[in-house]
């Protein structure tokens, strides 16, 4: 019995570790560094109906134990992803979670319908939480009714389970979580980035051309842990947790908070081998904790 194996809707994970969307492209670059079949799954870069160039540069800025980004969902578009990116990933024995983004319900639905038919796409991650695009995206993620309706519309056409990616930039994330569950979501992924700014010391102007960016990295982990802790207690569907995961101990924290699996984002930039390193370290971490199967840790924080 594989101690790290985790089963989630649509996903048979060898281990609960997967790179987060936008921090791993479509896998090619990291595929030059290690065997991607080692990963539990891969969350690919957001795919929109039409290809997008994204925002002007500078698109990233470093902050205390974190970074801001405003990439703006640059991607080759649905057709490019279907024709080039997904077929290339088929050489690996790894489930793909396709991050789907759009500006209105119709294009989310169209992308979801087509991309969920790709043989290696085992689940969708509905991105209603990107803070870096002008319309759409986050507007769905901050209104419970809109989040519900979009989830329902996508569920209707998707061939695979649908996870919804929540934004932390809301007053009460539990409301959104309950709304997407009611809309038929099979799971939740959380959190996306927190909106922030950095100013240039000399000029006083924002460093990021888009003015605001999304904060990620170790700095956001306490916020993410708190939100996973809360949401996992009000929904029945599983959570893939993320936000600042940088080492094995962070994975344990997210599982304890109530996540069933964990995504690693920004840490891939700091150490491109971080995912395989964590996967390798997990069994001894389980020994240390006296735990046999990794799922035993899920939700420890709110057990009586």
């Amino acid at each position, binding site marked *: 019995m594989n101690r790290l194996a985790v089963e989630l809707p649509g996903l048979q994970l060898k281990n609960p570790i997967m790179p987060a969307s936008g921090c791993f492209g479509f896998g090619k670059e990291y595929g030059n560094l290690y065997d991607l079949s080692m990963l539990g799954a891969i969350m690919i870069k957001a795919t929109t109906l039409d290809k997008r*160039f994204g925002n002007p540069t500078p698109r*990233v800025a*470093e902050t205390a134990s974190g970074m801001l*980004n405003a*990439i703006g969902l640059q991607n080759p578009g649905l057709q490019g992803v279907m024709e080039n990116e997904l077929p290339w990933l088929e050489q690996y024995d790894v489930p793909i979670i396709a991050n789907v983004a759009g500006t209105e319900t119709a294009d989310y639905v169209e992308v979801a319908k087509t991309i969920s038919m790709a043989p290696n796409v085992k689940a969708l991650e509905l991105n209603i939480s990107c803070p870096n695009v002008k319309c759409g995206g986050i507007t769905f993620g901050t209104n419970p009714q809109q989040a519900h309706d979009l989830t329902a519309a996508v569920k209707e056409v998707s061939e695979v389970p649908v996870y919804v990616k929540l934004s932390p930039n809301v007053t009460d994330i539990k409301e959104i979580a309950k709304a997407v569950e009611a809309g038929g979501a099979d799971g939740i992924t959380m959190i996306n980035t927190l909106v922030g700014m950095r100013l240039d010391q000399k000029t006083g102007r924002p460093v990021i051309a888009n003015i605001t960016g999304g904060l990620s990295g*170790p700095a956001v982990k306490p916020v993410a842990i708190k939100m996973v802790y809360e949401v996992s207690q009000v929904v029945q569907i599983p959570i893939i947790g993320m936000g600042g995961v940088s080492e094995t101990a962070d994975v344990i924290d997210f599982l304890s908070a109530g996540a069933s699996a964990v995504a690693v984002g*920004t840490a891939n*930039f*700091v150490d491109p081998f971080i995912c395989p390193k964590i996967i390798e370290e997990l069994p001894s971490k389980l020994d240390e904790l006296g735990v046999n199967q990794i799922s035993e840790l899920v939700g420890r924080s709110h057990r009586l």
Partner: protein
Amino acid sequence: MIIQDRMRVTGQREIAKNIFEMKLTGKLVGEINSPGQFVHIRVSDSFEPLLRRPISIASIDHQANEMTIIYRAEGRGTQLLSMKKEGDEVDVLGPLGNGFPVGETSPGETAVLIGGGIGVPPLYELSKQLTAKGVTCIHVLGYQTADVSFYEEEFIRLGETYIATVDGTKGSAGFVTDVMEKIGDGFTTYYSCGPMPMLNAVQTAYTGKRGFLSFEQRMGCGIGACFACVCETTDKTDKEYIKVCSDGPVFPAGVVSI
């Protein structure tokens, strides 16, 4: 191949005001294939500062299995780097990107190498390789002031060298383009690295000449995965955009929209 290497510091000295020359040894050196490639350096083993710092490879010594980088200690990351001592280990990812095409200039021909500030370092290894194959190199190096200028002697040993400082404290007063006017156009190719306005001025002054420019952009991953470092392109290429880290940092003149 790109590798992550814990390289050992074999030398570190301040060669000009806040400008450091650091020597590193490790198996990564064996992977470097062209001048102008860069490395992505993690300056601390903690998560503060978080991101790696992109720094060009200034010189390669395959026999000693050693490479040299030259950097300005300015922000938090490079300041920490400047505190590393001989024997310390540094987490280095590389070699990254595509360097200057040495093959574009043939033996007997002349190349002009134009560098500005911390864009000068990669031109040193480039000049070593070009001169070694019989290319005549003319160097035009621009600095803000004399006290931040470096490697004049090293470049003079390789060929004709002109220095320009903005305040005139060394060489001629003004910009590299002022010196370029004096050199004329009796050369085959040019290679340049420096701040964007300088690259733009060089490219404009040498319209019609074959040239290669090395670009700088804020980076996340450094390997082509995050789309942080993109630049728009001109109609001189089929690509709609380029990533400085993995498609570059060196591009033929005219390709990147400046």
